[in-house]
């Protein structure tokens, strides 16, 4: 039986304490205009890899990005896609965490909205009336 080692103390930060599972995962993400972007399907953390011994003084993992897209499948059924396959919303873009997550940027340039933009440009905008405002 190994003796338990004390974890390195968490870095001192100002702000709220959030539970990733409760407050971040499966939450709706809206851009700064209030247009829905996606739901948070998974989270990307920096820091030490799995199965690697932690050296004393290793900094704690830091949340680097919200993940969306096909990663939902691996979250539910298991496995991990390669890093290059992940569709990220960088954590720096998140402006507010409440019932929904609000971004500080517009959705137009995000990787996460690529499919929406493609469908819009190639399919919907080509059907007559696609850009018509219903109000």
């Amino acid at each position, binding site marked *: 039986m190994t003796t338990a080692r004390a974890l390195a103390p968490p870095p001192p930060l100002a702000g709220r304490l959030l539970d990733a599972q409760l407050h971040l995962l499966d939450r709706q993400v809206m851009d700064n205009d209030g247009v829905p972007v996606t739901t948070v399907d998974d989270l990307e953390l920096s820091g030490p890899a799995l199965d690697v011994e932690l050296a004393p003084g290793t900094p704690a993992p830091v949340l680097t990005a919200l993940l969306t897209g096909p990663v939902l499948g691996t979250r539910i059924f298991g496995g*991990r896609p390669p890093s290059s396959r992940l569709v990220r919303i960088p954590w720096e873009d998140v402006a507010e965490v409440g019932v929904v997550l609000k971004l500080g940027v517009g959705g137009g340039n995000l990787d996460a909205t690529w499919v929406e933009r493609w469908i819009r440009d190639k399919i919907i905008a080509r059907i007559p009336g696609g850009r018509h405002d219903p109000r």
Partner: protein
Amino acid sequence: MLRRPALTGPATDLPRRKPHRWGVLAAGLALAVLSGCSGTGSTISTAVEDSTSAIATARLALSLDSAGKLTRAATSTALDDALKELATSRNSVLKLSPASEGDRQSVQEALSVLDGCAAAMTTARDAVAGGERAPSLSDGGQQLSEAADRLSQLGAKDGGK
């Protein structure tokens, strides 16, 4: 540069699933038993019931049409649907493979009655469709009521079986 080094070590095996043979076998057996349960007698009586319903629908539609309460479109649609139902019942009897001589007799009898019903229904539908050499509506109604009588006789005989 990769943010994290690649994972090392053997991939874990997929969890083994218990063979579902018994469940599939039981379900298949149940379905086989239940479907095999419908013998010749019950197929014929179901066909008789469905055909009685179809003929009654046709008679009701014709009488409403004569009373001026239905449009031609609605009457012809109702008759087409009834004809389709007759055809389905007839096919179910046709598909039977009777085992005994008695069963073969009843299948033949049922088929002849159902054919008569289909002929009556076609007459009625042609009467409604109109046209030059179409039969009259009263002809259609007459044939349908005769078909209904023969069906109820067949049904009574089967009920007595």
